[in-house]
C-alpha cells in the first residue's frame, strides 16, 4: 500500500516536471529567420549608413567586436566573465562566418531579444538588455552600417563555458528573470535633451553594462543603477549620487570629458573608458551633450565635495612620500596643464574613489594612447616597484593626497593586478 502511494507520487511529480520542461522548451524556443542573399551596399540610404556609423561609435561596437590586432568588426575578442570566456562574434557581412545572411528582421531580433538568426539565445555579454531600447530607425541605421562594411572571413572561436552554462537554452531562463524588453519610454518629467541622453546612455551606449553592479547571475542590479561596477580588471566608478569624485560633475564637464577623454579638474579616461571617449569624439556634439546632461542629472547636485578631508591625522609614510616625490610629483604636482601634465591626485576619482584597483593598474602599467591616436601618456612602474613599495605609494596617495581613510584589501588588489599583467 505504502509503496503504491509513493510510486503514485513519484509518477505525479515526474508528470509535473515533464510538463514544466516542455513548457520551458516552448517558452525558450525561437524560430530561425530564413537566410537572405547579402544585400548590395548601394541598396542602403547614405544618410542611414552615416547615422549607423555614429550609433556604432556611441555603442562602442568595434571595441568588443574586434580581436586585438584583428580586422575591425571581425570579432574574436575574448570577453572574460565570472562564468567563463565568451568570444565576440564576426559582425561583418561575410556570408560564411559573419552576418551576411542576416535580414534586417534577424538583426533587429538580436538587438531587441538577444536571439541570433538561427534562433539560438545569445549570452548577455552582448548587452541586448540595453540594445533592446534602440528604436526601429536607429536599428535600421546600424544594420545599414554593418552590412556595408568590408566582409571579413573570420570564424569565431568556441566559448569556454562550463556545463550547464554552455547550453544556450538556459539563457531563456535568465531572460525570464532579468531581461526587460524595450522600447525606451519617454519620461515626460524631463526635457527632450534629457530623454535623448537617457535613450542613448541606457540603450546603444550601454553605460550601465560597466557602471552598474551585477548580481551573482551576472545581471545588472536595477536598484543600483550607475552605482559603480567592474570591467575587465578595472573599477567603473559610480556615476550616480554615490560618485566619490572630489569635484561635482556637471553637464559641461561631462561633455568635455566624454568627447576629449580628459578634464582638467577630473583627470583622464583610462582603462576600458579610454576607447569610449575616443569613439565619442567622432559622434555629433548634440548626442554627447545629451548623454552628459542625462548623466549629470542622475549624479545630482552635491553641496559639499565628497572628497573633502575627513581624516584629521594622516599617517606618516616616508617610503610612499619619497616614491611620490621622485616618480610622480614632476607631472602630478607640476605646473603643466592637462592633458600634457598629470592631474592633481586629490582631484582624481582613482584616488578618492571606492576602489584601489584603477590607481594600482595605472601605476603599474601607465597610460598609453592606442596606436596612431593622441592622448595622455604616463610611464608604468611595474618593473621597478615591489608589491610592498607599491602598497606604500598607494597608501600615501590615498591618505596624504586624497585625504581619505585607507582602502582595505590593497594587498589583494595588488596581487590581482600583477596576475593580470602576467596573463
Amino acid at each position, binding site marked *: 500500500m505504502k509503496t503504491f502511494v509513493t510510486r503514485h507520487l513519484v509518477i505525479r511529480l515526474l508528470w509535473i516536471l515533464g510538463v514544466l520542461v516542455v513548457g520551458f522548451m516552448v517558452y525558450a524556443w525561437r524560430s530561425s529567420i530564413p537566410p537572405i542573399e547579402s544585400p548590395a551596399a548601394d541598396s542602403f540610404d547614405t544618410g542611414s549608413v552615416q547615422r549607423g556609423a555614429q550609433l556604432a561609435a556611441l555603442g562602442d561596437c568595434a571595441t568588443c567586436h574586434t580581436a586585438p590586432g584583428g580586422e575591425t568588426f571581425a570579432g574574436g575578442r575574448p570577453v572574460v566573465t565570472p562564468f567563463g570566456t565568451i568570444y565576440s562574434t564576426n559582425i561583418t557581412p561575410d556570408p560564411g562566418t559573419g552576418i551576411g545572411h542576416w535580414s534586417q528582421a534577424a538583426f533587429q531580433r538580436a538587438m531587441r531579444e538577444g536571439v541570433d538568426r538561427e534562433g539560438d539565445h545569445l549570452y548577455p555579454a552582448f548587452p541586448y538588455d540595453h540594445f533592446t531600447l534602440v528604436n526601429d530607425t536607429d536599428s535600421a541605421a546600424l544594420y545599414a552600417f554593418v552590412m556595408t562594411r568590408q566582409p571579413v572571413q573570420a570564424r569565431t572561436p568556441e566559448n569556454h563555458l562550463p556545463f550547464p552554462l554552455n547550453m544556450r537554452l538556459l539563457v531563456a531562463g535568465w531572460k525570464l528573470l532579468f531581461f526587460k524588453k524595450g522600447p525606451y519610454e519617454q519620461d515626460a518629467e524631463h526635457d527632450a535633451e534629457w530623454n535623448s541622453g537617457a535613450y542613448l546612455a541606457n540603450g546603444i551606449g550601454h553605460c550601465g553594462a560597466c557602471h552598474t553592479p551585477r548580481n551573482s547571475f551576472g545581471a545588472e542590479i536595477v536598484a543600483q543603477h550607475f552605482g559603480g561596477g567592474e570591467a575587465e580588471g578595472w573599477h567603473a566608478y559610480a556615476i550616480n549620487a554615490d560618485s566619490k569624485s572630489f569635484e561635482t560633475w556637471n553637464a559641461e564637464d561631462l561633455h568635455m570629458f566624454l568627447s576629449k577623454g580628459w578634464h582638467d579638474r577630473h583627470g583622464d579616461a583610462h582603462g576600458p573608458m579610454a576607447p569610449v571617449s575616443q569613439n565619442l569624439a567622432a559622434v555629433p556634439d548634440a548626442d554627447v551633450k545629451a548623454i552628459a546632461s542625462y548623466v549629470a542629472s542622475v549624479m545630482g547636485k552635491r553641496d559639499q565635495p565628497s572628497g573633502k578631508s575627513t581624516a584629521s591625522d594622516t599617517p606618516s609614510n616616508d617610503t610612499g612620500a*619619497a*616614491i611620490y*616625490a*621622485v*616618480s610622480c610629483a*614632476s607631472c602630478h604636482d607640476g605646473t603643466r596643464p592637462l592633458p600634457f601634465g598629470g592631474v592633481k591626485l586629490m582631484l582624481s576619482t582613482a584616488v578618492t574613489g571606492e576602489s584601489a584597483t584603477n590607481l594600482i593598474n595605472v601605476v603599474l602599467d601607465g597610460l*598609453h594612447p592606442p596606436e596612431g591616436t593622441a592622448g595622455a601618456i604616463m*610611464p608604468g612602474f611595474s*618593473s621597478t616597484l615591489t608589491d610592498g613599495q607599491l602598497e606604500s605609494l598607494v597608501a600615501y596617495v590615498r591618505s596624504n593626497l586624497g585625504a581619505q581613510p585607507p582602502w582595505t584589501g590593497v594587498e589583494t588588489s595588488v596581487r590581482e593586478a600583477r596576475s593580470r599583467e602576467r596573463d
Partner: protein
Amino acid sequence: MIELKVNGKSHNLSADPDTPLLYVLRNDLQLNAAKFGCGLGQCGSCTVLVDGAPTLSCVTPIMLLEGRQITTVEGLGTPEDPGPMQRAFIEEQSAQCGYCIPGMMMRAQALLQRNPRATDAEIRAFLEPNLCRCGTHMRILRAVKRAASLMAGPGSTPSTQTPSAASTQIDASDADSDAQLDRRRPVHSEKRERPER
C-alpha cells in the same frame, strides 16, 4: 648608504634614498650615457635596464634599486670593443644629434634579450615610448634589426658576450655583405632611405 650594482660593479653611495637614479649615474658614477631629456619620464632618453627591464632613470629613486642589476650603455661594451647593439648603431650611423640614442639602445637591448627574433612591428611597438626629434627613426629601426642579427651570430649571445667572440663576429659579418660597408658612409644615406618611405 645605499649599495647599487651598476654594470656588474657594486657602488656604495651616500646620496639621499630619494635621489633619481639618473642623477647618481651621471653625477656620482660619471656614467654619462643616459641623458636628462624631459625629466618627466615621457621621452625615454634616460632609459636604463633594471633586471633586464627598460626603466626611466629620471623618475626612479635609488631606494627602489638595492640589490637589483642596473645596466647602462657603458655596460654593453667599450669604445675599443663595442657590443653588438653599439656596433649596430655605429654601422647604421643611426645617431644624428645622438641625444636619444642611449635610451633607444637600452630599450632595444631589453627587447632583444627577451625576444631575439623580434619582428619589425614588435620593434616599432616596443620603441614607441622613446622619442627622437631629429627623425633618424628609420636608421634606428635598421640598427636594431642589425643588432639582432649580430647577437644571433656564431657563438654569441647578448649577455655573455666575450671580447674575443665579439671581434671574430665583426670580421664574419663584414665579410657577409658589401652593403654593410656601404652603410658606414653617411653620404649615401639619403638615396638609400628614400625607397623605404
